[in-house]
């Protein structure tokens, strides 16, 4: 999963235009929204687009979105569990 986490960091930086942030600065288990990377609701939509475009995965239950997108680690876990389903 570590490889996926590193890949996700790069993809997020590109997808969300986080040009002033290096992959190493993103802590895998820290919150992406709020205090962490300060992402907003538009960024959440972009992450959903990223999941669908790059991994062909949809978040079936919107209520689970907050938990799935909490951190890079939770995103990687969700992708690992749902890829190819």
């Amino acid at each position, binding site marked *: 999963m570590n490889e996926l986490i590193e890949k996700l960091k790069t993809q997020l930086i590109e997808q*969300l*235009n*986080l*040009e*002033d942030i290096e992959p190493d600065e993103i802590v895998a288990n820290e919150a992406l929204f709020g205090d962490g990377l*300060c992402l907003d609701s*538009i*960024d959440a*939509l*972009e992450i959903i*687009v990223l999941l*669908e*475009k790059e991994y062909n995965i949809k978040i079936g239950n919107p209520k689970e979105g907050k938990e799935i997108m909490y951190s890079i680690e939770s995103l990687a876990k969700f992708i690992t569990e749902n890829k190819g389903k």
Partner: protein
Amino acid sequence: MNKLYINKHVKLLNNTVYIDQEKKFSVESDENFSSFAKSVYKNYEIKYSKFYKMDALCKLGFLSADLLLRDLNRENILPEEIAIITANSSSSLHTDKNYQKTLSEIPSPAVFVYTLPNIVSGEISIKNNIKGESLFFIQDKFDTKFISEYVKYLFENTNTKLCITGWIEINMNEDYQTDLYLISKNEGSLEFIETNLNVTYNHE
């Protein structure tokens, strides 16, 4: 009515920053707009987490407004007393075109939110805590008579004490130009009259 004055003028054109007609900063002429904007952002040590997410039109207006408003004494001026009256000719076409490209796959929400020209006024307002009158006109060329009359009307008939006005343009070829003026009743070197709103174009 009391006279109005141009307190400051910021122009971004040909990879160069001019403040009150003086060349202040520039980068190589072969750099594209994105590189130029990033260089201006870093050179003037602007800190704003959303900057890199903005589209080109917003970056252009945001940087120009930041240079226009820095060092300004806003004591006794409420956010509601600052107006933003701007115009351009290409509207948000530069971003509309980018958004159109994303339609073939999954449309990008982050690009979509910039497909209106007046979003630039919103970005300037959020960063600088401005809550006054805000209008963005689409005009073939900067209509100095119309804009200057509109700004004068605001000072005469509303609570406006300060106004950012001018031209914020980037077209589909990435030719860009801003001419932003800071207008107030405080005496400045130039009176705010139609003929002193000088917007000359480099891409006709």
